[in-house]
């Protein structure tokens, strides 16, 4: 099946969890398309199924029903090896809590996906990725020696290093102060401008206003889906913000 520039196509995607005797219907049939180059926010109250959807799209979990095509490939029925390969080559994850390995320095953290790759990537790929997030000079620092915003940028570099089809971010600014969060959004907007497809799960409508399209989820179903009218540009927001260190005044 040709995907005609549509990176993600889902059809009636369902996910049930068995929690003891009760079945939790976390997703009750989600059909959504995401095109190449889009930057989409997924919003919704806590427990509405945002993370569940992201996990399905990120190939870390299999749906209980429905179909999911990633770049035209039906992922819903793939086995563990094939799914792992999908995650490795097509998906870049960014988490709320960064999830870097504390004992590895920035460059080695970024290199991690290469260890599981079937293809050779250039030796300098990790450094290139760090350069894209503006942290080339911190390559040999450990996560504990970096600020939260810097750690999140390293995590983005790790997500980029395999040149994936789509970036999936779950509350990427949730653990950051407003300025560091804005800097992360700046990185995302830049990557998006370069053509990267990005999906961001967030509670924060300010973050959502940085994207081009907002999908609302409620109780495992999509309730609304529409373009952002007055898109915020991170460069401008940052310019209007007080300088670092002046914030406490």
């Amino acid at each position, binding site marked *: 099946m040709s995907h005609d520039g549509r990176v993600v196509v889902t059809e009636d995607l369902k996910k049930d969890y068995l929690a003891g005797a009760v079945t939790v219907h976390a997703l009750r049939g989600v059909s959504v398309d995401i095109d190449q180059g889009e930057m989409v926010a997924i919003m919704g109250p806590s427990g509405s199924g945002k*993370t569940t959807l992201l996990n399905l799209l990120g190939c870390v979990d299999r749906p209980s029903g429905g179909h999911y095509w990633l770049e035209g490939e039906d992922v819903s029925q793939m086995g*563990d090896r094939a799914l*792992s390969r999908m995650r*490795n080559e097509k998906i870049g994850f960014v988490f709320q809590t960064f999830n870097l390995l504390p*004992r590895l320095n920035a460059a080695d953290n970024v290199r991690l996906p290469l*260890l*599981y790759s079937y293809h050779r990537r250039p030796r300098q790929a990790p450094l290139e990725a760090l350069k894209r997030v503006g942290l080339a000079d911190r390559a040999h620092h450990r996560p504990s020696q970096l600020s939260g915003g810097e750690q999140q940028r390293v995590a983005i570099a790790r997500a980029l290093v395999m040149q994936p089809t789509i970036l999936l971010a779950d509350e990427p600014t949730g653990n950051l102060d407003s300025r560091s969060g804005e800097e992360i959004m700046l990185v995302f907007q830049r990557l998006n401008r370069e053509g990267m497809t990005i999906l961001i799960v967030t509670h924060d409508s300010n973050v959502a206003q940085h994207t081009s399209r907002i999908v609302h989820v409620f109780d495992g179903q999509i309730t609304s889906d529409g373009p952002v009218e007055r898109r915020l540009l991170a460069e401008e927001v940052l310019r209007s913000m007080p300088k670092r260190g002046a914030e406490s005044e």
Partner: protein
Amino acid sequence: MKIWSAILTGISELMAHKLRSLLTMLGVIFGIASVIAMVSIGAGARQEALEQIRLLGVDVVHINRKSLTGDLALKAQQDSPQGLTYGDALALKKFYSSAQRVVPVCRVFGEVRARGQGVPSKVFGTTADYPIVARLDITEGRFIDEHDVESRAHVCVIGSEIKRTAFFLENATGRTLKIGNQEFVVIGVMEERSLAGGRKVVSLRDINEDIYIPITAAMDEFQIYVEQAIPSDYRTFRQLLARLRERPPLEKRPITQIILQVGDQRETWEAARVASRMLEQRHKGIVDYEVAIPAELLRQSQQTQRIFNIVMGAIASISLVVGGIGIMNIMLATVSARAREIGIRRCVGASRADIARQFLLECLVITSIGGLLGIALGVEMARLISGYAKWRTIVSGQAILLSLIVAMTTGIVFGLYPAVRAAKIEPMEALRAE
């Protein structure tokens, strides 16, 4: 994932928790060390037994005089009053054609003096073939020859220790020794034989203090040394003394040992059987001799060795199982502690198989390093044992290779379950847990 990077991850994981890693390895270290130590003690003992028995010769049969007691002794008075005799040796030589050599030996009493000084020694009468069957060499002069035996010559061959105490390492041949009240001319010196220290499989006397004279001269000039129980009643005692003082023809004189050489180890059992039957007839059914086969001793010591090996193997496997369970325990704890890491690796593209392989390899790295440390410890233990207990130990390359393989197998066997557990961790659940 490439094997090499998984191994590197394993090593860096070990280095990050040095104390924990060492504790994890302890069981394997001691298990392997005891394997090495025990194998090398076993190998040393085997080697020693072999060497000691080889000194006796594996193609010979020893027939030794045996003293009888009680009713048997009384019966022997009638039917075989002399016990083992020179005549027995002559008969064996004459009628048992498969015997390559028959060498009679008799120990005699007699104080040995050189330059008026007493010399501690043991005097044996024997024949020209003795050095061949006893595997001894001459360093100086010559051994007794047939002519000496025939002419009952007063010549002697001395052990190296005698030369040292009596002649202070000067040239000994041509000098004289006084044995009893007879003068004997030294015609040769035996090569020194060092007895390896350690546990004796067979008792070997210190032959460096031996003096050899022609058996004819021995029987002619001295009372024969007869290891016989002293009879309890006075009358029999008198009879014994009288008999020892008697001067019957040479064939009737008692001797202490006959050494039979057959030339082939496989024929020794047959030779022992034939000799036993002949002696049984000659001694009218009185078994006042014993037939010993050094090759049989070798077989017995190998059997003992087998038992030792089984016990050793059991101890080693128990300590390795205990060590392995320790590793499994700590690996299981590690797997839960590293759930987040596992989740991260899964998210960036590791399959369940990749995770399982990584943990299995880490286990293998632990047990291999533990194995190497155990080998080092075991070699050192073997060295200390030979130093203090004077046991010979042999550390063979084979034993080292074997223990390394055993260590790695332990790693795989006991790493399997933790590895499977690690592979089963759901990545997103692991990442959600704070």
